[in-house]
């Protein structure tokens, strides 16, 4: 029976108001296999997945020569027919579990609803099924968790609950739209394992992702989409190891983890190396020691979010801070920026107290004079711009602080836009009208407007597509070389950290667990947590041989996930 549970798509095209978003897509998904749709935002991958469950959206015109699942013609389905199919035969896992789950409903109820809608079993067996499902996807203490609301669960548990609801009726096909995006490396690894189990049960999996490394873990076949058209299609090993199309190659090149520092990630300027950086003996700009910060939570419990953190940032160099969400890295950034007073320890900028706890407190007034020397780039640039202002006004505002007289600002704005490789016409636009990559470039232009010595980058590329991320990372590298900037670079992405950093600080639960040069950290991680973190990073098959980092021994990689075979990817 399961042999017939085959998804056949032939000549699928999707239009919105006469505008074509997907053109002539064909693939077959056999039972027990996994197909990955890969592409950047706007490539049409999500809408393709949605059209398979009849949710392409209002005004969508879906046409195909064949669109069938398990022998059933999907094109002729009525809305009622779709409703019966969704959940029962095809499960759908959405990207953002926090948005997709009802915030006011316990997650158990959410799963129960799927069972009730399709009239599965009776009252008691449904209740048991919910617990069983939560166990299947690896939720600890399922009885307790089922009664909790999404906001009481961590990101990983939420995603599991969402997967559980998609699996409720044992669908033969599960579609997962960016299931691990926005998750920490170790959590991502766990979710990938859950998805792996779906595959192992003999069900089909259609995964949508922009992350090639994630795809490499799961897919049997890969379909690369660009502007709604198939660029490349074939077995995973073949597509990722020997890509035929230049676009696939550029996606692979853009993965920072696979490229040593100093190499370019984006194709525009080729792979030429960036100029030599100052050595480890350049003068110390920012020096933090013994930083501590406590918060009192809503439950009156005191949480030590930063505990005894110290570092030195030297001129022209990059210090990476890596850690998972809740590790305190953003709090460290805000203390370093002087926006948050530490409870303990101090920060010195050029040997002058910048921010300190207790008696050494530094007044904001004296700090303000030096603020132009330390800039910041945020993960979400849009929220850091005044919504009323155009790009030109945003930059002019920053130039005001730098003391640039009004008459010279026009020329300087044009120069700044040129430096971040944006056309000068953009200065009249509002950030809302720009793409994500352009917004981050504007944020970078604002950060360099005052000729700073240090830029604190808080997850600056985490919300960007790989190829845009590659361009932004290249831009940051160029600016560092030409302006002699020092970066305090915060990220949860080990690949990015490894690509940009000279030294790395690994943080966990507010403490620094390891502090080493990038080479020794990735070659020879000392702390068990670092090793676990490194082991959890999905890798591309046949990664660059010039990699400095040898593969981790299986023993160290399986510390946490010994039951899974995920991490034993041959390099």
């Amino acid at each position, binding site marked *: 029976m399961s042999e017939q549970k085959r998804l056949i798509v032939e000549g699928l095209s999707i239009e*919105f*108001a006469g505008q074509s978003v997907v053109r002539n897509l064909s693939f077959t998904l056999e039972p027990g296999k996994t197909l990955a749709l890969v592409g950047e935002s706007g490539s049409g991958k*999500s*809408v393709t997945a*949605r*059209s398979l469950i*009849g*949710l*392409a*959206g*209002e*005004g*969508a*015109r*879906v*046409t195909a*020569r064949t669109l069938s699942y398990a022998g059933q*013609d999907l*094109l*002729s*389905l009525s*809305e009622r027919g*779709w409703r019966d199919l969704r959940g029962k035969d095809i499960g759908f896992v959405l990207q953002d579990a926090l948005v997709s789950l009802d915030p006011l409903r316990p997650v158990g109820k959410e799963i129960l609803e799927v069972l009730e809608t399709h009239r599965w079993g009776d009252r008691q067996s449904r209740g048991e099924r919910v617990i069983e499902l939560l166990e299947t996807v690896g939720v600890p203490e399922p009885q307790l968790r089922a009664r909790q609301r999404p906001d009481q669960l961590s990101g990983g548990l939420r995603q599991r609950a969402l997967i559980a609801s998609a699996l409720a009726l044992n669908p033969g096909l599960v579609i997962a739209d960016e299931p691990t995006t926005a998750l920490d490396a170790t959590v991502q690894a766990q979710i990938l394992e859950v998805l792996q189990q779906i595959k192992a049960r003999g069900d089909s999996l259609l995964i949508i992702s922009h992350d090639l490394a994630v795809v490499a873990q799961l897919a049997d076949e890969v379909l690369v989409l660009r502007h709604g058209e198939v660029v490349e299609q074939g077995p995973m090993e073949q597509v990722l190891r020997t890509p035929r199309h230049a676009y696939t190659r550029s996606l692979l090149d853009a993965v920072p983890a696979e490229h040593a520092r100093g190499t370019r990630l984006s194709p525009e300027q080729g792979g030429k190396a960036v100029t030599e950086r100052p050595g480890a003996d350049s003068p110390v700009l920012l020096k933090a020691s013994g930083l501590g910060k406590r918060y009192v939570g809503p439950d009156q419990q005191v949480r030590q979010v930063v505990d005894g953190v110290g570092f030195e940032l030297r001129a022209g160099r990059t210090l990476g801070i890596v850690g998972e969400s809740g590790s305190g890295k953003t709090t460290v950034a805000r203390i370093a*920026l002087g*926006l948050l007073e530490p409870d303990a320890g101090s920060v010195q900028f050029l040997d002058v107290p910048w921010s300190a706890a207790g008696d050494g407190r530094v007044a904001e007034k004296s700090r*303000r*004079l*030096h*603020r*132009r020397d*330390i*800039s*910041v780039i*945020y993960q*979400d640039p849009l*929220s*850091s*711009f*005044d*919504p*009323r202002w155009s790009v030109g006004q945003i930059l002019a*505002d*920053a130039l*005001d*602080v730098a003391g640039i007289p009004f008459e010279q600002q026009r020329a300087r704005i044009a120069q700044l836009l040129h430096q971040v490789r944006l056309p000068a016409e953009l200065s009249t636009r509002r950030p*809302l009208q720009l793409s994500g990559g352009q917004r981050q470039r504007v944020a970078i232009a*604002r950060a360099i407007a*005052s000729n700073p010595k240090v830029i604190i980058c808080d997850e600056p590329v985490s919300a960007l597509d790989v190829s845009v991320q590659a361009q932004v990372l290249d831009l940051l590298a160029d600016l560092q070389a030409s302006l002699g900037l020092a970066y305090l670079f915060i990220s949860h992405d080990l690949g990015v950290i490894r690509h940009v950093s000279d030294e790395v600080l690994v943080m966990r639960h507010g403490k620094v667990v390891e502090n080493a040069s990038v080479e020794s950290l990735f070659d020879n991680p000392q702390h068990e947590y670092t090793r676990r973190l490194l082991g959890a990073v999905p890798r591309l098959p046949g990664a660059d041989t010039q990699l400095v980092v040898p593969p981790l021994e299986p023993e160290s990689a399986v510390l946490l996930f010994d039951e899974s075979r995920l991490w034993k990817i041959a390099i």
Partner: protein
Amino acid sequence: MSELTLGTPLPAIRVQRTPRVWRVGPLLAVTFLLLVVIAAIVPQLFASSDPLAIVPRDAFHPPSWAHWFGTDQSGRDIFSRVIYGTRQSLFIGLAATAIAMSIAIVLGLLGGLGGARIDRGVGWLLEVLFAFPSLILALLFVAIFGSGIGPLIIATGLGGAPGYARMVRGQVLAVRNAGYIESAKALGHPPLRIIIRQLLPNAMRPLIVTLTMGVGQAIVWASALSFLGLGARPPAPEWGTMLSMGRDFIANAWWLTFFPGLFIVLTTLSTTVAGRYLQQRLEGRLS
């Protein structure tokens, strides 16, 4: 080879930009408001006769070609009086709203930025102001300062202030945590500049709409006070006063009350419709 269309009534993935269409309602409202403003500035443009000229033999003429809105008990042309009254009513509305907003901004900024203790104090003050019926507050004011336009404006403004103050405070609390305020601080801007150039304009943004509607509200309030004899004095052409004067003759000469009343209604309605439209436009541009 089958070619079929799947239509599903679910939210669109892509958002289409709707073309900017002036609908009839807002268009009429804005036109009317413009005429009202022009009438307030140069009433001579619309009305040829003196609003105060008494012509006893012309008393109680119903609306006619000579007197569009008829005449009152002293033979004064009601159309002229309504037109000349525009200035008074609009001025009261604007001035009262300005006073309300100024008090609200001060209290709202104090509450939103001044820390927990000041915030609590401001909260108490607002609750006390809320607890007073506005009319009683206005009466108290008139009792102390005497009736007239000045006390009328202040009383109306005071009555509206607590509502605005709560909104300003809420907005300030929301905006002060916005990313762009933090990045302005990180850039090194002094606090006063951040408050004036970024915090206040962004906090006031959603209030522009409320303010537009508030002007209409203030006109109604001021008219009500005048109607009670607490505002403008009788011969003066003021809509509320005219209503009050015409009340005695409403059985025989409906036009004495109808036309001033109509203008109060139309002006208030127009500010509300225009405000709503403004709201939709602003929200559309921000999201």
